[in-house]
């Protein structure tokens, strides 16, 4: 089992390197540190969401509401700061808690009421976004203090702040997933939920935690996003869920659950980011880029399927 995963991640790394070589051939500006750092920075917010999404998908679930949680938590933070005059040092943690609670709402409907994750998060995707719009009356919040903006626009040792945050969280997630009993229970739920329950895994509690984590990470991404673009708007995060899911699936985590990993997700995230960056540098129009990202996803997963079937023969 472990050998298969290791091999898949090796395949991804090879693909990534091949892609980078291809992009470099299209434009010599690609492999400059400036460019590479910026690409990673642009993927950081979605990366945070994708980390948690990896866990959700490993449990054979899905969370379509992450983009809307971004919108709702960013407006919560913004309105607490602007209307309630709360200092950002308080508004930010508040928003993070809000994100976790929103994720908990998803989790409750999924575990306690038993509604499939696709349906719950499809409905909350609309519901949370709607609340963000309603409570903010569609206004945007601006003029955040410089100290806050540093989170999304600053650099430490030449590397953007959010990249550091992503790197640290990724390591934590990886360790949590692979080295703890909790991580093992996440895998077992995805592999066979009934069996996991029978062998004593607190399935409902773990699932709840996974969805709360997803909400929390979405809120974290929201805070960094607001710092990055210096605005809080209720339509923040629109479409994030699809990019996050693409990264997770491309990275080798199976939609059927039970396998996958954070490392693959990160590599896939970089693959998509580098592809777009290289194509933009090569002046490929953005609609063609969209097509290629879609094709990339299908081709890579197809290759993975074929190789696994070939492996079985």
């Amino acid at each position, binding site marked *: 089992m472990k050998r298969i995963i290791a091999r898949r991640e090796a395949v991804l790394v090879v693909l990534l390197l091949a892609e980078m070589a291809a992009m470099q051939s299209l434009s010599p500006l690609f492999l400059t540190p400036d460019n590479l750092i910026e690409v990673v920075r642009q993927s950081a917010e979605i990366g945070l969401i994708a980390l948690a999404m990896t866990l959700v998908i490993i449990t054979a679930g899905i969370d379509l509401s992450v983009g809307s949680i971004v919108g709702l938590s960013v407006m919560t933070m913004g309105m607490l700061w602007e209307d309630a005059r709360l200092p950002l040092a308080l508004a930010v943690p508040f928003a993070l808690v809000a994100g976790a609670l929103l994720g908990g709402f998803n989790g409750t409907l999924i575990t306690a009421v038993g509604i499939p994750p696709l349906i719950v998060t499809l409905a909350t995707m609309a519901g949370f976004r709607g609340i963000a719009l309603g409570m903010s009356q569609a206004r945007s919040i601006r003029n955040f203090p410089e100290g806050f903006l540093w989170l999304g626009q600053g650099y430490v040792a030449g590397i953007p702040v959010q990249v550091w945050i992503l790197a640290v969280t990724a390591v934590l997630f990886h360790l949590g997933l692979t080295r703890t009993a909790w991580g093992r229970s996440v895998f077992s739920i995805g592999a066979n939920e009934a069996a996991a329950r029978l062998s004593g895994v607190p399935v409902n509690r773990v699932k709840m935690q996974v969805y709360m984590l997803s909400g929390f990470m979405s809120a974290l991404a929201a805070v960094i996003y607001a710092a990055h673009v*210096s605005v809080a708007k209720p339509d923040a995060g629109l479409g994030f869920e699809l990019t996050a899911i693409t990264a997770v699936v491309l990275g080798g985590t199976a939609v059927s659950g039970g396998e996958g990993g954070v490392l693959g997700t990160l590599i896939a995230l970089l693959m998509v980011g580098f592809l777009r960056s290289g194509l933009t540098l*090569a002046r490929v129009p953005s609609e063609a880029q969209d097509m290629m990202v879609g094709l990339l996803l299908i081709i890579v997963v197809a290759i993975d399927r074929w190789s696994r079937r070939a492996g079985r023969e």
Partner: protein
Amino acid sequence: MRKAFQILLILAGAVLLLVACGKKQTPPASTGTTSTGAKLVVAVMPKLKGIDYFNAVERGAKEAAQELGNIDLTYDGPTEGKVDQQIPFIESWTLQKVDVIAVACNDPDAISPALKRAREKGVHVITYDADANPEKSGREFFVNQATFEDIGRALVDEMAAQAGEDAKVAIVSSSPTAPNQNAWIAVMKRYMAEKYPKMQIVTIQYPEEDQGRAFSMTQDILKTYPDVKGVFGISSVAFPGAADAVRQAGKSGKVAVVGLSTPKSMKGFVKDGTVKTVILWNPVDLGYLTVYVAKAVAEGTLKPGATEFEAGRLGKVKVEGDQVLLGPPMKFTAENIDQYDF
């Protein structure tokens, strides 16, 4: 061993495919050198690709580039009107050290840091259609089609003339967070309160950029508020949707439809009387002017303090402070609408 080999073969194939696709689209690579003699690299970005309005802007930009002769024009942007999808383009162009970036911003503050970085790296930055934050972005000029005041007033005056000064009206906009639309609505409300106090806005609806929703929302408005005399359709998507709804409800001529869109989308409605006037400015001219301004800024012929600017076939346009003004809004009516093909 065999399967590893098979995988590598497929991978190689995939890479070749990507490279092949890429090469097909790549025009001659830009050298990125600065002006004086060599070609000026100008990058123009719309709010989003795929709507009539910006397709017209693209035409104007290409026309100007061809006329001027020494412009290497790139026109690209996201397929959705989201500012965080615009930022990667700005950063890529900064890296390529293009000479000028001209952008229609989806959000004035969000895009400013990226524009500022471009300025710091020596790239000239101008905005058009929708401005960035002037201080935070360091952008040099804003090519404005017409001020928000002019547009808002033109819309309201037109409605007063068609539906009466005491009419009940509805507004169909685009997204509740769209900056241009919200600015126009603010002007319209203020102007109405000043000049036509008896005019009443019964509702404002937001169909996003979805024509089907604009249609059914207008339909519903006509039924919910049967005494409504006029509908404002203030986006290039909302206007045809609203006009369609009024026409199909059999209310052409009874309910005035006033709005902003391209004459091409509205031609049918103007011809059959559903819409009497289409207000816009000429987006082709806007794109044209933008490229002229871009060149002038890069070559240093347009500097702060100028009061007018000569732009090819447009002649002299006014410059107010750091805004280059295309001119007052244009009105397209049944008499002149055939002359325009955008």
